[in-house]
């Protein structure tokens, strides 16, 4: 149970950074934290005490494997996370070029 609660806390920590931080880079870090929390949750879901990595070396092995499916999912979601983080950082760079600040309270040309 403890690892799951830790994941949730990490998730909420990231959400806190996104909602309350004013610096764009910190928001992106918060976003990465949330993403890692979910990935970690996936890894914990597949985890099993005392089991080995799911590599079949010979038929008829009797040892327990950890669940390999969440690991495959985590790989996919890490790649997606890479793409989104890269795009966010690209946004941050272009925004800095236009506004000369990372402070979101000063980046307000749209209203309503």
């Amino acid at each position, binding site marked *: 149970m403890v690892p799951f609660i830790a994941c949730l806390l990490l*998730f909420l920590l990231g*959400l806190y950074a*996104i909602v309350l931080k004013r610096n*764009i880079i910190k*928001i992106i870090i918060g*976003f990465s934290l*949330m*993403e890692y929390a*979910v990935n970690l*949750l*996936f890894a914990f*879901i597949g985890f099993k005490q005392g089991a080995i990595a799911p590599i079949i070396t010979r038929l008829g092995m009797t040892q327990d494997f950890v669940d390999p*499916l*969440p690991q495959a*999912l985590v790989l*996919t*979601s890490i790649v*997606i996370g890479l*793409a*989104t983080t890269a*795009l*966010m950082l690209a*946004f*941050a760079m*272009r*925004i800095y070029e*236009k*506004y000369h600040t990372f402070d979101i309270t000063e*980046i*307000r*040309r*749209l209203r*309503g």
Partner: protein
Amino acid sequence: MLPLFIIVPLCGAFLIPLLSRLWKGLADVVGNLVGAVLVGFAVYGVAALAGGSLPAVYAMGGWMPPVGIVLVYDSLTALVVLITNLVGFPALLFSTRYLDQYTGRWKYYSLFMLLLAGLNGVALSGDMFNMFVFIEIAAIASYALVAFGTRAEELESGFKYMVMGEVGSLLILLSVAMLYAHTSTLNMADMARVLQAGGLTPLSWFVLATMLVGFSIKMAMMPFHSWLPDAHLSAPAPVSAMLSGVFIKVLGVYAMSRVVFNVFGLTRSVAPQFFNLLVGLGLLSIIAASLLAINQKDYKRLLAYSTVSQVGYIVLGLGIGNYWAIVGALFHVLSHAVTKGLLFLASRSIERQTGTREIGNLGGLERNMPVTSWSYVLGSLSMSGVPPFAGFFSKLFIIVGAVEARMYWPAIVAGLFSVLTLGYLLKVINNVLFVNRDRNSSLVREAPAPILVALVMLTALALAFGLGFRPVLDWIVNPAAKVLTIPLTYAQMVLGG
């Protein structure tokens, strides 16, 4: 047949950068070709499904469900794929002339193709995680497209949209992880069976709540709507049309109703609280967004708020949850996709020819831009539910459903705010198109041909869905509503037996 909906736009996305090295115009040609082909597929798919000749389940790589990843093509998917491509093609056609002001034509088309691939993929996927991946493909493409102009405002709204959208995506991913932990399967049909056998536990309510928030962000329900007006304002017009007409419906409405009705197997009698929550959210969106729309001075922002309120109608219909209300909600998905796509394209056509978005600066455009003006008028009438148009029938069915469920207040609100919709759209029509003819010199010209073709195409669709509502109901909407109202048929169809 089924993978082609995803493969064709994906191939287009990768071919366009390569081919446009040979000749720049090839980007337009390939992009529009893919759009046209996809419309053909979607129409063929609907016809084949009606004739019963299409295999509804495709196992990727021959791995059978529940182990393998499946693509599922049932009536609900058919409806969603149809609107995606019916709006996608005119939007692509519109783009050919719209892009004259930008450089990097092939980048735009590539991203647009990825958006189409993602949207079709979300609709077709029968696997929970796969659906998330397609949601991300569509979403990332849309973030980049919203900020395509890379001016300061566009970057600002793009970043805002991206942060909100990604929080939504992560909430969806979190709930997918918890669902997998709960059911030990990712196949939606298999998941439905496990969830049915286990009943609703506190964990499933937590998952539902997380999903509801995630999808609400994607579909811009009222407490989570703040990204939408800015994003629609800054995005290139064909992208606004796609975002408002299709994106929020596929990623929000479709994905949510698939999960709620088919995976969790919820109906109003099982979980009245959840459905009342949907009704509440729907009403909040209808009321607040309509009131916000009235005061807008910018006609594109007005349309964006109108989208929030119209999505409220769809969620209201789903929340009422009886047969007619769901028919109405799905019909509204169809009619709103076409008409809002039309209105965004028409308003961009006005902006392109006059160079302003302020309602107060325009007037009397009807004389110089007849095609744009009249398609705007017809689109507005359909949007606000004037009888011969598609919008009338969808709202009628939602109200009929509400009365049938003895929910009189939602019915009254839905009717009343439909009139308000007409009110704020008439404000635009009257000020921009008809009165104050002296405000604009006769220099304003009608938009170029591809733009007009796209507008006429969407107007014709809005009219056709209204005048031919009987066949549309029989072939497209009723079967799709049956998928949602009899929740467990989905699992049976996919897994057999």
